[in-house]
């Protein structure tokens, strides 16, 4: 491998940082750890090719604000957001603000590596992302599926989608499965990505 890529881990939990560093180093990445968003912003990104892996929920400055700040200072630096289960709406916001992907904690190694590779492959400017081949959800989906799609990418869970559209949870789940298939999306992050590019 040529010049190794650097992953900047930003998480207020020491053990999460340490374990990620170990795992990523063993997968041949350079790793730098930061205990807070502020610490990272002060240090700045490394010179070599890198991406940021940041927790969404941190004291003082959360991952969302960090994402915004990075967008201002280093618009070409890709960011992957890590979330707990309850923070999906925040992750969706982060993606709208330009994050490449998000991972729900705890995550398996393949998901982690894939998200990081995608982030590193992504070369910055949002304009370039638009060039990616994509399906237009508005055209590919039925009206109802599109409604479900819009609620999902706002971070609503199946139950809330069902409630809002006044349909059963089972029906909401069926719509979700159908639209994921039509859009060739494997997870919520894919859906959010589509919704952003669709704008």
């Amino acid at each position, binding site marked *: 491998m040529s010049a190794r890529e650097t992953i900047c881990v930003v998480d207020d939990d020491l053990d999460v940082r340490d*374990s990620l560093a170990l795992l990523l180093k063993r997968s041949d990445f350079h790793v730098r750890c930061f205990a807070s968003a502020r610490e990272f912003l002060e240090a700045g990104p490394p010179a070599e090719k890198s991406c940021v892996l940041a927790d969404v929920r941190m004291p003082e400055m959360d991952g969302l604000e960090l994402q915004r700040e990075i967008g201002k200072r280093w618009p070409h630096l890709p960011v992957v957001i890590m979330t*707990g*289960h*309850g923070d999906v709406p925040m992750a969706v916001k982060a993606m709208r603000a330009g994050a490449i992907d998000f991972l729900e*904690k*705890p995550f398996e*190694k393949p998901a982690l590596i894939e998200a990081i590779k995608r982030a590193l492959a992504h070369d910055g400017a949002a304009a370039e992302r638009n060039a990616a081949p994509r399906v237009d959800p508005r055209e590919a989906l039925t009206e109802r599926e599109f409604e479900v799609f819009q609620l999902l990418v706002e971070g609503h869970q199946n139950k*809330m989608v069902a409630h809002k559209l006044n349909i059963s949870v089972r029906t909401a789940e069926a719509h979700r499965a159908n639209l994921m298939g039509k859009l060739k999306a494997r997870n919520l992050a894919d859906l959010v990505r589509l919704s952003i590019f669709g704008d």
Partner: protein
Amino acid sequence: MIKVKLTDGQQDPLFEALIATAVDGIMVIDETATVQIYNKACERLFGYEAAEVVGRNVKMLMPAPYRDAHDGYVGHYVETREKHIIGIGREVVGLRKDATTFPMNLSVGEGYIGDLHIFVGIITDLSERQARDKRIQELQTEMWHVSRLTDMGQVAAGLAHELNQPLTAILNYTNAGRDIARESGDGDLETIFSKVAEQTSRAGNIIRRLRSFIEKREPNRLQEDLAKTIEEAIRLGMMDAADRNIHLELKAEPALPAALIDRTQIQQVVINLMKNAAEAMEHSPRRQMTVTVRAVSPDFLQVAVADTGPGLDKEIADKLFQPFMTTKKTGMGMGLNICRGIVEAHGGRLWAEDNPGGGTVFRFNVPVAKEADEA
């Protein structure tokens, strides 16, 4: 209104009007318990028209067993002048024409018109009051239930977050360990690490299910009159304020814009804050609780609950909103944590500060409802 012997054609119009327009039931009986006057309100209360009742024994308006005992009561009084109900009032049960019964307050006075010894009964219908009491009780039960659910949801949310961090670390370490085992060709160890990883993912899924199971009493945010909401919370939560020698005052700015809130949740927050305030003042000589509702900006309304207790220690003040933080012997220390969660979910903030005159003020903001919120 029908009069038998009381007036002989000589009707005083004012007297007529008074009896006929009285909101309370007015009834006059004589020494034989025979109904002499039975006004319009009585007709509404009992369902009988005056013609059906006047001239008959009043016991027809009473359910058993009072019905059978009543003649005895009247006779006993006339004979002994021992007063039981006369001069005072009591809660009794009335019998309607349709055989249903209703709670009523009956006050009885006595007097003479010439030789005629009469008893005057004033009847107030208590069924509405009872229905209201019942409604308040239901609201309290509902609030308790919601608060249980919210507690559980919040505890689960807190636990999920706390547990996710170590689970994430475990899974990462395990995956690194599995890589090492694979590289060194130790198949057994690799299998073991794989199994640890599997079990960790399983634990993560359990938390995920737990959360989605308890979620979501979907907050039901509507345009509400905040002052009214708070007033109702005070009625629900502080019914015993007087018993505890607490002087409670609600100061609401007039003509406030509507707030966008889940009424039950906000009431829960206010009741929680008021209960804390009441407990804080338990040993204080001055027990003044002031609840203030006002606008602080075009976008936010603020509720403040001020007490005259001993105030907060610096040490406690710092940790006030942390879960499992409590100064009480009983209690889980989740109250303020939950309150803050609710307020923040509304897009507001909850904090504590010193009350300038001594004691503590808890303040929180909730958003003003905008046109578009009516959806």
